[in-house]
């Protein structure tokens, strides 16, 4: 299959682990990372529950082990740590002109807002806020000199970055691409979601009837995607394939999704079409599942529209990490690949009672079964709905 898009590297950092192995072990032990906010001073510190990466920026720089430019944002540092792990796994020592496609919602807002409006008299800080700055900073941090661009479609950003990377490979313009997403917690987003009354005062409970909102999180997840041509030249272990990717718009409301979950339905349907898989081939769904009233109800509705009476095992891992916004689809892409690798559907924490309509029941305990194809959903403000499908290495041939 010439058009195969292989995943050869993955890297991540979240509230439940500094790398892929740590994340997997936390998932296995059902250890979540939802705790009172630590690093951001102000009204929300020590009370608002978030999925925060436990390290300070200085500690992140030390972990990274390279010199970083002045006023490097936390978003860039998290991205660099995750991207470095992905490149190492793919045995890419020199990024060179490999394109970097990064999803982020607020980029370097975390550092910009600390100095706003005086900015310490330094223009660098203005750039740090630019979404695109973090993609080019990332490319340069890793020693790259290729095309770098950023996608910002709120909470689906990383899924769309992964899809664009796939299209670059399919077009033959490049044979390798580094894709993913990163978002650091910021006063801007915490207060924003608070003003929308979407934050829960308890650890979030995706798909539960008594869910009452989300916990924000932070982190980064990156993948190395390679074409068949690249792998012919340099064969390497394949972690899985990206077989389906799609984006559609709900065209219903700025922040809420339509009752029928139209955008989500269209995204899942198109991703299935591209992957040439029937719905019953999907073994596990890593849902968007933010635990807001609106998202979980409409997403479940869309899932039911696609899968009918045969809804596969599904869960939301946001109960572990919190909602990491523009990074979430990058992080959850890796969880999808881990599900395939370990033949395990991850438990949806804190679920007790099914919703009234539709009364779908997520996986409440890790479920071991044959997992060949995993579907991962990510939806954002502005009606932006994206779906990725990952498949195991054997099923393609």
């Amino acid at each position, binding site marked *: 299959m010439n058009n195969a898009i292989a995943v050869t590297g993955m890297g991540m950092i979240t509230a439940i682990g500094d790398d892929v192995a740590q994340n997997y072990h936390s998932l296995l032990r059902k250890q979540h990372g939802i705790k009172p906010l630590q690093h951001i001073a102000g009204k929300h510190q020590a009370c608002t529950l978030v999925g925060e990466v436990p390290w300070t920026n200085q500690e992140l720089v030390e972990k990274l082990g390279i010199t970083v430019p002045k006023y490097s944002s936390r978003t860039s540092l998290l991205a660099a740590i995750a991207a470095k792990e992905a490149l190492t796994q793919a045995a890419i020592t020199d990024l060179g002109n490999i394109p970097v496609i990064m999803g982020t919602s607020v980029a370097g807002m975390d550092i910009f807002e600390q100095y706003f409006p005086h900015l310490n008299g330094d223009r660098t800080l203005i750039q740090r806020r630019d979404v695109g700055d973090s993609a080019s900073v990332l490319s340069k941090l890793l020693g790259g000199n290729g095309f770098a661009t950023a996608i*910002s479609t709120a909470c689906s950003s990383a899924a769309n970055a992964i899809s664009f990377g796939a299209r670059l490979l399919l077009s033959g313009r490049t044979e390798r691409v580094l894709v993913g997403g990163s978002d650091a917690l910021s006063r801007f987003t915490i*207060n924003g979601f608070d003003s929308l009354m979407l934050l829960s005062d308890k650890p979030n409970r995706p798909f539960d009837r008594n869910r009452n909102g989300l916990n924000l999180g932070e982190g980064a997840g990156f993948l190395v995607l390679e074409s068949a041509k690249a792998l012919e030249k340099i064969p390497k272990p394949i972690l899985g394939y990206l077989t389906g990717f799609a984006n559609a718009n709900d*065209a219903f409301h700025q922040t809420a999704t339509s009752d029928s979950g139209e955008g989500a339905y269209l995204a899942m349907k198109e991703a299935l079409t591209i992957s040439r898989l029937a719905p019953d081939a999907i073994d596990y769904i890593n849902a968007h599942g933010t635990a807001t009233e609106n998202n979980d109800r409409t997403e479940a509705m869309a899932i039911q529209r696609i899968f009918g009476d045969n809804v596969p095992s599904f869960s939301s891992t946001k109960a572990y990490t919190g909602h990491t916004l523009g990074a979430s689809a990058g992080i959850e892409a890796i969880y999808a690949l881990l599900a395939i690798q370990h033949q395990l559907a991850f438990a949806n924490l804190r679920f007790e009672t099914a919703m009234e309509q539709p009364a779908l029941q997520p996986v409440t305990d890790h479920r071991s079964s044959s997992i060949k194809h995993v579907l991962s959903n990510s939806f954002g403000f502005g009606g932006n709905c994206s779906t990725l499908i990952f498949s195991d290495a054997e099923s393609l041939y």
Partner: protein
Amino acid sequence: MQKVYINGSSVAVINSAQLDTTEQWIKINLPKIDSELVPPAATRRMSKAVKMGIICGMEAMRQADCPNPDGILVGTGKGCLVDSDKFLKAIIEQKEDFLSPTAFIQSTHNTVAGQIALLTKNSGYNMTYSQGRISFESAALDAYIQLTMNERASLLVGAVDELSDISIEVNQAIGEDQVNDTNGIQTEGAGFFVFSNQKDSHTLGELKDIDIYRNTAGHSSEKHIGEFLKRNQLTINQIEAIIYSSTTVEAPFNTVSPTLEKISKIKYNSQTGIFDTDIVFAFDLALKRLNDQTFSTSISLNEGKKQHDRNILICNFGEQNSLMLLSRC
């Protein structure tokens, strides 16, 4: 591989007469949105960026007679800056209390693409790129790939950037010596185009190719342009004009090469001032020249020889560079 045609084009930039000033920031005068097009209830929360996007986006779709494209792609360097600044300022001033959610909702980068989708009930592909001065080209590259691979047939592709009073104040406070790193008046604007892999009576030109790259030690822009033309089976002699922008100290043309000398080179920022996605003006200008349209501008559009093969190269030189090749069809 399918070809990519441009079937509609609408651009909003400042009036070039406004540039005759000592001001460093100039805003665009935007007409009121026709209430038949968009109901007033829908426009009440819209920032200028969203309004510019809607005006240009709707006009490009009207021109192309393409009311429901397969998707909407937007590039924006700074996103919805006014609402983002407004929310940020409120957080600081109100000490995180009593924050109004409207500005936060509207601050998201994909507000423009989302609002156009909402207004036109477009449930297709919806994408927003934000990468400084190559934001429009990022969106255009995505669209180009999808159309050539026949994944979609028509896409609305555009870009928008707005100025914000709060950001202007913050910039001014930083100090004169640091204010102007791009040597020009900062402005705002938008441009939207209908890209299609179907040629029809509305077709204004063909987007033959697009590339985005960074300069490396052994690889200058001049070399890159040569390779870009070669892969399109063209020589520099078949290019009738180069429309370009450069934020690097020296544009590659300053080192005059004999081959480039004969070609008319138009640096368009004297017309538009500078905003991250001002390249949309060059895109529109190239389409106008390819269709021999005359219009009032101090840029001499028709200098240089016209050729049988009508090809225009649009170049954007900066931290990253882009090349776009537009041809008459």
